[in-house]
């Protein structure tokens, strides 16, 4: 029995509305047009999560498009969450792409503002820091536009739609971003705009996250949307330190950094072993984080981001006890 009438045709929505702890996993498209890379990741992850986020030129780097990658993974039998940023498209292009995505069978859309294009130039990457950005609408306005299309059958400008895009609408939330006292209010605005589900920025500081979630639960916001805690898989000490110092809204407790340091030190001068040790510690930390967020009131799932490390995700999910995933018969007709 379906507990309530579903808003979309999304499997993720069905999993959540049936009271399951949801799992989404991120898939990063390649920087070229090699469909095989996307398909390979899809085959590797098939059946292991309820839906799979496809990033949209993440960190301002040109990649195989989110829509195309989403369609590729559909062909392998996976359900995509198409990420849509406000950085590269104005409201015309966004809505046009949303209609196109719906026509192609995509049923989840994560509305995000998008990293500034200056992020693309980092390390060895040149990126396109001189690009003109758009930001015609922001992520909250995008959520609202999408909801208007789905529920009211109107485009943002007011023209009507005959066939409405049946999307499950997502938004991102940075629970520990600065200024921290505004973060619950911003989540509230995203929910009011129409966010059915939320995927948070990667959480490492469970203590602080718990505090913020207590505020959310006290506000009753957890009942108005499904909050999936973001889990970023740390590969090594360098990545942990980098995220701690440079990624907004991510703070890594000293204890985790120490653990990773220990893992590296244990290998002595053996670089290969050091890498292996850190990878193993990273996975252990990830599994622990998943189990910890599962216990936090108001958390209804996890969103796992293993950046260019998708092949380690099956092991993580198995060790966290998150597979097998619930299966629902495909809707007839």
């Amino acid at each position, binding site marked *: 029995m379906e507990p309530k009438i579903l808003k979309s045709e999304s499997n993720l929505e069905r999993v959540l509305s049936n009271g399951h702890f949801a799992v989404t996993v991120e898939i990063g498209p390649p920087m070229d047009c090699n469909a095989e890379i996307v398909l390979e990741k899809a085959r590797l992850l098939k059946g292991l999560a309820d839906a799979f986020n496809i990033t949209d030129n993440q960190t301002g780097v040109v990649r195989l498009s989110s829509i195309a990658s989403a369609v590729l993974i559909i062909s392998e039998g996976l359900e995509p969450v198409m990420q849509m940023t406000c950085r590269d498209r104005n409201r015309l292009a966004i809505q046009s792409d949303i209609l196109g995505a719906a026509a192609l069978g995509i049923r989840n859309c994560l509305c995000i503002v998008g990293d500034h294009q*200056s992020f693309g130039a980092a390390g060895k990457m040149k990126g396109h820091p001189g690009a003109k950005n758009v*930001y015609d609408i*922001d992520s909250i*306005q995008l959520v*609202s536009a999408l909801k208007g299309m789905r529920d009211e059958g109107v485009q943002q400008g007011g023209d009507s739609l005959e066939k409405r895009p049946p999307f499950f609408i997502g938004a991102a939330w940075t629970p520990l*971003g*600065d*200024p921290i006292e505004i973060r619950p209010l911003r989540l509230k605005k995203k929910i009011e705009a129409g966010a059915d589900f939320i995927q948070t920025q990667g959480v490492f500081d469970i203590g602080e996250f718990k505090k913020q979630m207590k505020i959310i639960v006290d506000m009753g916001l957890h009942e108005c949307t499904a909050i999936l805690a973001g889990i970023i898989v740390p590969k090594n000490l360098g990545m942990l330190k980098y995220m701690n110092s440079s990624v*907004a809204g991510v703070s890594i407790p000293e204890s985790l950094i120490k653990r990773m340091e220990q893992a590296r030190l244990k290998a002595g001068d053996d670089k290969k072993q050091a890498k292996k040790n850190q990878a193993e510690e990273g996975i252990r930390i990830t599994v622990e984080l998943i189990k910890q967020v599962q216990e936090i009131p108001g958390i209804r799932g996890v969103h796992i981001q293993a950046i260019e490390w998708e092949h380690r995700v099956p092991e993580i999910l198995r060790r966290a006890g998150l597979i097998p995933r619930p299966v629902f018969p495909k809707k007839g007709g």
Partner: protein
Amino acid sequence: MIVAERKPLNEIKSFVENYKKILIVGCGTCTTVCLAGGETEVKVVASGLRIGFLKEDKEIEILEDCATRQCEPEFVTEIVERVKKEGVEAVLSLGCGVGVNFMADKLETIPVFPGVNTEFFGAAVEPGVWVEMCAGCGNCILHLTGGICPIARCSKSILNGPCGGSKDGKCEISPDVDCGWNLIVERMKKMGTLQRLEEILPPRDWSTSHHGGPRRVIREEIVSLSQEGGESTKAKEAAKEKESGR
């Protein structure tokens, strides 16, 4: 004010080195105040060019001038007349882009080159430091955001910020850039008006900004006065009187 920065001397030199007689024109308003293109900078650029040309044995006559404002006809007309009278072959403007455009509109075949890069509308927050504070977008919403502009001061110009990229009061693009939304939140918190940010601001109409095409402001009462009175200065005086009389 409009904030500008002088272009590198080599770039300026490359614009004008093939003319025999050039006029460098400063502007007495914004670019004077931001120390980019006033009387002093005209002198500096002129002597820099003279030294450069001397080294290369080039004989180029450099004239100097400074208009009170390069964006008003009464001041620009004087410059245009001087250019024609003295046979100037090229003009280098140290006014903002408005000055370059306005003179180009009036100088027919004489080229006008930009001596500064026009940056933004900003304030001098400390000696030698200017910060962008207005984007001139044509539909002011400062009453909603504690007097701090998200269009000009947020890197993404978002209306329902801050985004997830705010860290220790700084923007994700650089630790040197203040997060505009952090400024808004902090100020509204102090003012006790933070709850006003609960309201979702809808997508804005960008047609009042440059996205609506080149803009113009028409003040009918001044237009009609100037048609009656003939001279624009008279019209302005009359308009001033009219305004103060209100």
